[in-house]
């Protein structure tokens, strides 16, 4: 069995494991009476899928001789791997089932697109064109992928914020005046919702959840933003070493800048009076769509250095 079929087989397995994990997470969210063991199954299976992805990428690196980030297929796999790694880390830190429930569907869609929609021709590793034969390839593209994954995670949490708050204006300061301690917030919210004697306690739990979501998305985007900065700068320096022009308003570069601007405004809007809560979450949610346009939309629709030229 040659490497190509082996890798194809492995990535199909990854897809099915992620599907299984997604179902587990959604079940455990809907029926919260079940204890956390069900979630453990989901977590372990996504850990296994992540390890398998890592092996696929490593084998591609060894076989082709260069870092596995030279075409769309490899970058999609790399993105899924970083997404899963980040989600596993965040879920361990926050101990919230929401992370997996929100992120595994996205990872599933990406692997699905990579394996099922892309032709085998596009999946094959072909020799690098002269412009890509540089050490900057590793630095720039991996940093951009890492930043995309982190920012996707953060902006999904912002969208979740908007969904749970049902797009109403939320005053998050109310929670601080109460004395509800803040350990496992998920558990609190759902337990109080189920056993609540009064609606006020469940409302408080919901506000606490929203406050946590707000802070988590802030911290995650706050980490993804420096990554994006480093990625864009690495791209500029590479362009300068290759063509003498660190910025040429290429559609991909411009959209990366637009993504950077949107998340910069997200980070700054939180300090602006009256914009906390819903409006910052809208900016965060907008960031989600901007990332996808930047990553895939430009390649398929635009012309320029990064174009794959499908629709041009």
């Amino acid at each position: 069995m040659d490497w190509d079929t082996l890798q194809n087989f492995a990535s199909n397995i990854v897809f099915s494991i992620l599907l299984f994990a997604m179902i587990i997470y959604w079940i455990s969210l809907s029926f919260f009476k079940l204890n956390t063991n069900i979630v453990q199954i989901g977590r372990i299976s996504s850990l296994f899928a992540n390890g398998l992805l890592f092996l696929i990428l490593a084998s591609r690196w060894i076989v082709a001789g260069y870092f596995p980030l030279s075409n769309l297929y490899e970058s999609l796999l790399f993105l899924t791997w970083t997404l899963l790694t980040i989600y596993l880390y965040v879920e361990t830190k926050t101990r919230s089932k929401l992370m997996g429930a929100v992120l595994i569907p996205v990872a599933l869609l990406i692997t699905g697109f990579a394996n099922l929609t892309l032709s085998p021709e596009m999946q094959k590793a072909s020799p690098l064109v002269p412009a890509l034969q540089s050490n900057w390839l590793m630095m720039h593209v991996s940093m951009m992928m890492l930043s995309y994954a982190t920012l996707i995670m953060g902006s999904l949490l912002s969208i979740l914020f908007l969904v749970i708050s049902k797009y109403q204006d939320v005053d998050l300061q109310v929670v601080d005046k109460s004395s509800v301690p803040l350990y496992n917030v998920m558990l609190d919210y759902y337990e109080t919702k189920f056993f609540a004697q009064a609606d006020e306690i469940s409302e408080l739990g919901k506000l606490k959840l929203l406050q946590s979501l707000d802070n988590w998305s802030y911290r995650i985007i706050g980490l993804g933003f420096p990554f994006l900065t480093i990625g864009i700068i690495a791209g500029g320096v590479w362009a300068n070493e290759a063509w003498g022009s660190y910025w040429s308003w290429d559609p991909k570069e411009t959209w990366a800048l637009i993504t950077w601007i949107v998340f910069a405004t997200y980070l700054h809007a939180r300090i602006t009076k009256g914009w906390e809560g819903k409006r910052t979450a809208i900016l965060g949610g907008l960031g989600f769509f901007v990332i996808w346009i930047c990553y895939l939309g430009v390649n398929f629709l635009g012309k320029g250095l990064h174009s794959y030229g499908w629709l041009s």
Partner: protein
Amino acid sequence: MKQRIFKIIADLRFAIIILLLIASVSVIGTIIEQDQSIETYKLNYPIVNPVFGFLSWDRILLFGFDHVYKTWWFITLIILFGSSLLTCTILQQVPVLKVSRRCQFLRTPKQFQRLKSSSQLKKLKFTNLLARIKNTDYSLFHQKQTIYAYKGLSGRMAPIIVHLSMILILIGTIIGSLNGFKAQEIIPKTETFHIQNILSNGQITQIPKVAGRINDFWITYTKQTTINQFYSDLSILNVDGNEIDRKTIYVNSPAKYNGIFFYQTDWNLIGLRIKNSSSTFSQYPLINFGNSSNKIWITWIPTTINLDTGLVLLIDNLQGYCSLYNELGEFLGNLEVNESINTNVSFTLVDILSSTGLQIKRDPGIPLIYSGFLFLMLSTLISYITYSQIWLIQENDKIFIGGTTTRATFDFEIEFLKLIKI
């Protein structure tokens, strides 16, 4: 005075609006292709049937959408952004910095109620609490019965560096556009060139009088016959035509001389040199009838004196062979360098003449821009660190403890709870 206050209030919201404006306007430049000829716009955005119902070429040219990033209004937006950045840094961030470096003790228990996390303790001893705080990497300041502890001051200072490095980058860009130049030269192998084909220069640029010579140009191919790398052997010559410096450049590895960079960017085939049966050399020009990414050259060699029949030669690589076709388009075979063909007329392919395309550039703003980049990368990372402060007062047998943090409220609450746990 009123104007100053106005600017302070308007600063952050103003900056956010400017940023979002810049972002939305930049989108236009990605949808409409930039810097094309007027004919391209006339073709793609006709007045009779405008794209999206309103985009016709005259409107595009009127608003400058064909060169969005060089229009006066875009540059104005960037200038506004830069000045907003500058005023924000000077007026708001530097004073905050001065305050943060002082020890801010809280003296009365009443002040504790205003803090995000506060608690009143009876069971824990003062010294136990102090030990716990010290274990979590706080800097402690002790005055009689009050304690002030903080952690992560660098996270408070880093945003200033972020703004300053962005300003540095903008200054570097301005210097580069005033003082730098960009030129392109296509030089046949073994020929000499001067920097003459200037693509862009600034208002105070001085084009250097430098001459160069391409000694050799070659392409390496992979086993799958795709291009692996382009190489040019470049010599820099002085005024008398003597060589001062010599370097082989390839894509991603430019040559540098006196602040001028020479990049390998393009290539072309210009002709075939043929020797006929009577050892006369002729050169037939090659025309590229593909596009810039799929090049294929063609020429025609007559086989009769009155030029009415001939052979068509196609070539698309520099591996040292070309393909022969007759006038019906039938493939006759490949002809390698130094190989002869013996049909009605016999000739030998002697050489394939190539030229290399160089991009020549000087940008004096690069050192500033690179240092701005470096500081921006580091400072955005350090800005992630959260700045936490904890206050303690011991009054009789009661201990009041409180704390706040700038960014990581979730993590801080857990840390705070661990501190006051019995």
